């Protein structure tokens, strides 16, 4: 076999298998961004996707219950009741009127079941520089 062919096959195997793994990972973790208004227009399979929604926390709606935290997100004049069921503690920046980003899925009753919540304080401050790391529960300051 030609040397070039050999290298070609080697490279091909690597690229194809990595592509396959990427495709698997994509299927497992893809999440759709929507606004609160768009959520109400979703139909069929689109409602079953993993979703990410942003909005402002309505003042006075944060209710801490056992095993969950309920609150209402507002955006574009629409409201969305959210129930946070994740195990991570909510970020320190999650308070009334803060901007929040929730990730999870739509419940049958039209409410949102969130597994992750990120929040940014309403008070104005900027993102951290460099490689500031904001993994899920603590994305507070970058957004």
């Amino acid at each position, binding site marked *: 076999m030609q040397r070039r062919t*050999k290298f070609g096959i080697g490279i091909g195997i*690597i690229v194809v298998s990595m592509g396959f793994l990427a495709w698997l990972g994509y299927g497992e973790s893809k999440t759709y961004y929507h606004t609160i208004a768009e959520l109400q227009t979703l139909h069929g399979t689109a409602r079953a996707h993993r979703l990410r929604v942003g909005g402002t926390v309505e003042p006075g709606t944060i209710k801490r219950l056992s095993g969950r935290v309920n609150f209402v997100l507002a955006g574009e004049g629409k409201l969305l009741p959210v129930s946070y069921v994740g195990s991570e503690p909510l970020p320190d920046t999650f308070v009334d009127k803060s901007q929040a980003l929730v990730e999870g899925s739509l419940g049958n009753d039209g409410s949102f079941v969130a597994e992750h919540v990120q929040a940014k*304080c309403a008070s104005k401050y900027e993102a951290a*520089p*460099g*490689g500031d790391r*904001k993994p899920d529960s603590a994305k507070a300051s*970058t957004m």
Partner: protein
Amino acid sequence: MDVFGSFALLLAFLCAGYAFVGGIAAIRTRHPLLVKSARQAGIAACGLIFLATGSLVYLFFSDSYWVSYVVSHSNRDLATFYKIAALWSGQEGSLLFWSFLLAIYVISVLLVYRNKNGELMPYVGVVLAGVQIFFLTLNNFVANPFKVLASPGANGALEIFTRADGNGLTPLLQYPEMVIHPPNLYSGYTGFTIPFAFALGALLARYPGEKWIHLTRKWTMIAWCFQTMGILLGAHWAYAVLGWGGYWGWDPVENASLLPWLTGTAFLHSVMMQEKRGMMKVWNVWLVFTTFMLCILGTLLTRSGVVSSVHAFAQSSIGNYFVGFLLLVFAVCLVAYVKNRDYLKSENQLDSMVSRESSFLFNNLILLVSCIAVLSGTLFPVFSEWFSSSRISVGAPFFNKVNIPIGLILLFLTGVGPLLAWRKTSTDSLKRNFGWPVVVALIAGVVVFVLGVREFFSLVCLTLCVFVTSTIGMEFFRGARVIRSRSGASLLASAVDLTMRNTRRYGGYIVHMGMVLIFVGLAGAAFNRDTQKDMQSGSTLDIGQYRLLLQGFDSKAEKNYTSERMIVEVWRDNKPLMMLYPERRFFQTNEQSGTMVAIYSTLREDLYIVYAGENPETRQPVIHAYLNPLVKWIWLGGLVVVLGTLVTLLPNRRAVLVLAGAPEGARVQQPSAQTLAPSIALREGHD
């Protein structure tokens, strides 16, 4: 001082402009006076940037609360230490900081090579000035850090006013790592400008030979080292401050810092093919172009929040400038390449699958695949919105699925590559070099399996770590043994001697060893455990072999915040071990709170305790405890990587003992039997 700083920035912009235009004129006319004046304008621009940065620092230290940037990022009670960090804690300041670090590199290059490489340097100077102009444009006209607070006065004219105190620095940034992490990472980002400028300059000048690679090797190593440290310090900051028990979350900003590291690492390896065999010239030039563009992209992602933000969160307009600059850089690179591509013809071809060349080739391929995967995953929300109506993001499973196997293949190549011969490796040498390491690694694999490591990737990872360690150990041992047989020094002293004689090769091995330690640490992640419990004074929580006993609380008012601490006694095997104090801090100025994690770290595992706040129902404080095996190895590995990089930067010590007096030709053509065996002098190693 704000006027002084503003003015210095404006002058710096003009000087950089002259260095650029004058430099092009100098290249056209070859007039020595023009060459000199362009260089001096470049140096002046750097000096002015230093002055501007100095005045912003001064404004922070003098509590000048009429400057908008100072108001937003500092307050009177902020510790001195963090007033320095405040410099780069926001948009305007960190862009100035970019210019500042770049200026350090630029002025060093311009001074070091002021009387050398006369054909090449004007081109390099023009490229560097071009990059500086972009950042100075942002500093002067888009995100000026010297803006003052002003409001319309009685007669309608703007009047400057001063605030009594500033808004304070984000609590997340009030942590020692945050003072050293951004400078490191930014030094990495800016540092890759130097090899980029030399590569592009050499291409434009059609500068003969591989000289630009020799010239830039040290600069690339320095940038790479800063980038590595920046990434690891950032990971450590995330681990110690954010309190989620992990160090890497595939966050867009993290990914942004990883991308140029991946291509930079590929570049460091593939230039060796060009140095030794005259191959991969096109590839190398494009790798360094790509690395630079990824550095710009990294700054863009960090600064603009283009990916992490959703519709609801405001986006910064600064992104457009970066995208424009990226496109411009790409266009310039493409044109330079198309016009001069005949200059990049390869002198050799690949000979065999089992050779040093092919191991570099696969190393590069793998690093590039990883880079593409991380890049596409990071930018997926942006691209998906372009190509379809919905904005889709991908999460950790996507990145892990691709990058874990890639990491393991790389680890394998780390062990194999340096021991393969150039061109073609014989079966005999394969047996000699890899026989023992394979046996040792297999035994280690079995031992680790019996000890209870059943997670597939962790098992493979640890086995490979042992394999790579033994190949590296064998290299040091063989070389040191020869030196010992001549000098009679101890094996350790001989190993040090060996390293100093070929710093590049053995320093490289030390860097590889550091990477191995990091991989050991990463393998531990599969066994992380955590538990959460409501606590009151006197209650206990068990995790692993540890028992946590909550003794009580105390609170303390500090200058800038009040802290509330849990007093936790840690027991191991029914014996009291130590006290830990997880803490919550409340910052009055900006009404935010922060977590201080308490960590008991050993080589075996980290006991990681977070004071997670109060359970709203029971009104009791909550402890979240994590047990993270082997994390410490990651930080140790980082230190070893830095040490190894420093070694590679040292000049080689002359091998006086062995080769003193031997004529140059004789050394290579008639090696004595003894030098041949481990062949320190002969085999072209990892250098």
